């Protein structure tokens, strides 16, 4: 086995590490801690955060990549890049059907010619295969597995609750109830899913017979990456230019304002389309840059993040400029200047910490919009690589299936439901964070 560190993995881990460091810093700064405590006391905020952490865990598992060692002499590795999540979901990944099958089905979705029997729905290779000939037990088997799963989920939920007791004692003022209720609901949903997934395709299969549950779980990483890396990429430029423009004034301010006004006046979708088209040409004309197709898809994902970042930093930059203009005239900044503190130090010690709330609000507010944008862009054909599993590519391949009779509804539904949960959690969390950090709302 050989570990592979894709660029997006590296940046994603960097981001998580950055988040941890930021958390440690925020613990030490009183006004940061007060604001985060407000988030922690909000039940909605904690429940949404729990959901987001669960999504993040899936994405992190999916970000540890490796190439399997091939059997035989010498150092040879498989071309295919797998992740830990792939390994955990091996049963889902390695049991493809021929084509569409409905959720929990035992028979294929389409009729086929079967030798000796005429046209009929053929049995699935894996879905419900353990039933053998006893198809009448299908319903009872599903019910049994659901019951087992619920039992397991309840036990797991209870265990989590017990494990969380010390946490509650240490920080009794936080809304732990919401966290554990959310975790309990998650366990009660995940338990039956896991039990059923061992014998069936819980969410059906897609056109080429891949398990839809597997596809949706893999999509989470793409969505989270686009939602977070885009902000990470644009953040340094937005902060630096925004604060500089506000503090320095004069021609520097003029140049920076001109820069973001110009970028801002190009309609976002069109700028993204133009940039993505150019990136496609570049990637296609330089195939020698990438050794595996996973690397190429990864490069495309990162480039998409960079392009989205390029178009979305202007808003934050303008906000920061305005705030810095205000802060520059305040007494404590003037006092620092009078005492002979250097400009660089004023910017990092006195201005930056005091515009941090704007940055945090921007990060959490942008996230949900970016996840939604990925789906739309991939649909239009200027999103991620068509081979990258994402909500957008899932919807794109599934949308023609609605025209079939009877309808193939499950892959669309699965993609939309997962996306809805992710975006709803992000939106709710963003609201709570904004309420906690916005000084205008503070009372």
């Amino acid at each position, binding site marked *: 086995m050989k570990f592979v560190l894709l660029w997006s993995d590296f940046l994603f881990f960097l981001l998580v590490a950055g988040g941890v460091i930021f958390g440690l810093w925020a613990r030490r700064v009183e006004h940061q801690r007060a604001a985060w405590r407000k988030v922690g006391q909000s039940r909605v905020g904690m429940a949404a955060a729990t959901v987001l952490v669960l999504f993040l865990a899936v994405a992190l598992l999916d970000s540890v990549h490796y190439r399997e060692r091939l059997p035989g002499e010498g150092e040879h590795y498989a071309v295919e890049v797998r992740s830990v999540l792939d390994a955990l979901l091996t049963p889902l990944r390695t049991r493809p059907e021929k084509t569409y099958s409905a959720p929990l089905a035992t028979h294929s979705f389409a009729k086929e010619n079967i030798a000796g029997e005429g046209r009929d729905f053929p049995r699935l290779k894996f879905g419900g295969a353990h039933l053998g000939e006893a198809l009448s037990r299908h319903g009872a088997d599903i019910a049994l597995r659901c019951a087992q799963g619920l039992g397991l989920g309840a036990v797991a939920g209870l265990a989590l609750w017990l494990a969380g007791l010390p946490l509650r004692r240490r920080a009794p003022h936080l809304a732990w109830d919401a966290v554990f209720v959310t975790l309990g609901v998650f366990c009660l949903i995940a338990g039956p899913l896991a039990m059923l997934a061992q014998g069936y395709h819980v969410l059906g299969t897609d056109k080429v017979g891949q398990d839809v549950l597997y596809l949706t779980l893999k999509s989470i990483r793409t969505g989270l990456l686009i939602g977070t890396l885009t902000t990470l990429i644009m953040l340094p430029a937005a902060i630096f230019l925004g604060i500089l423009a506000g503090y320095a004034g004069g021609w520097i301010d003029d140049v920076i304002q001109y820069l973001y006004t110009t970028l801002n*006046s190009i309609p976002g979708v069109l700028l993204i389309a133009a940039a993505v088209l150019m990136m496609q*040409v570049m990637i296609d004309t330089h195939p020698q840059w990438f050794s595996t197709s996973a690397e190429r898809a990864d490069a495309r994902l990162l480039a998409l993040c960079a392009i989205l970042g390029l178009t979305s930093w202007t808003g934050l930059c303008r906000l920061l400029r305005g705030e810095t203009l205000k802060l520059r005239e305040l007494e404590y900044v003037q006092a620092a200047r009078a005492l002979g503190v250097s400009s660089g130090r004023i910017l990092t010690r006195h201005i930056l910490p005091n515009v941090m709330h704007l940055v945090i609000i921007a990060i959490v507010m942008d996230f949900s919009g970016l996840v939604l944008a990925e789906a739309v862009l991939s649909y*239009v054909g200027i999103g991620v690589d068509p081979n990258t599993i994402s909500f957008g590519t899932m919807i794109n391949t599934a*949308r023609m299936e609605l025209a079939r009779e009877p309808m193939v509804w499950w892959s669309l539904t699965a993609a939309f439901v997962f996306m809805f949960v992710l975006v709803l959690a992000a939106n709710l969390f963003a609201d709570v964070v904004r309420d906690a950090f916005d000084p205008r709302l503070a009372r």
Partner: protein
Amino acid sequence: MLAYLIRRLLYAVPILIGVNVITFALFFVVNTPDDMARMQLGVKHVTPEAIEKWKAERGYDKPLFWNAAASGAGKLTETIFFEKSLKMFALDFGRADDGRDIAREIRQRMGPSLAVAVPVFVLGLFAAISFALLLVYFRATYLDFAGVVLCVAMMSVSSLFYIIGGQWLVAKVWHLVPISGYGEGLSAAKFIVLPVVISVLAGLGASARWYRTIFLEEITRDYVRTARAKGLSERLVLFRHVLRNALIPILTGAVVLIPSLFMGSLLIEAFFGIPGLGSYTIEAINAQDFAVVRAMVFIGSALYILGLLLTDISYTIADPRIRLQ
């Protein structure tokens, strides 16, 4: 006022030049015309002669900025930058890579785009403001809370879901309207209804919530207390005082969009087969027709700048205290 407008229009020139330079850099410096030719011709047909022919047919065979071979002013004008970028200022967009005249296509496709975009804009604004006013009227009650929850849920649903779901339910199951297409004159109405309703619905959550916060901010002001103290009914307070004073932030968000309505909506037009500028852009993106994308970027930016100007003018109408100078 006039002097202000002229000054603002002059400000627009450097911004448009900047847009031009950015798109030029994107389309001709990041990738050379040779790369584009190779892309368009496909792997099989790439020979040096074919590339030269492709470039010559579309006028990409000239130097980028400085044509040493030409004479006089031709040194500057017979270049890609002049012919493909600067000529856009004279609204000369040239031909698409498939040979059709871009300006003619735009004129033809503007109508269908507007036929969808204008009703969406007007109805969307009306629906969002009425919904927000309703929530503010019942503020701090369970109705308000439920409304906000509904807004957040609605804005968490992908716009693709609204479109696919609406198309499936209304057109396929209920057979109320055709799934997609477009007709001439009044017969277009039956094709337009569904896209309009879906777009309004898809945008309602986010905008209603946004207007609600604006109204709530306004409602804590002193003049509202005065109005109530002198005995005005809550409805009069909301419509005559709060709504009028909240006009400035509403106009800031809305007026800037008006010129851009010409561009249509990419998604809606693509899904419903409306032959507008949005679907033109999507077709160009899918066919990798760079000339069209370049033209659309330029027009889009110009319309946006026009929108900013209109916003300023609308302020003076909404609030007599504001004078532009």
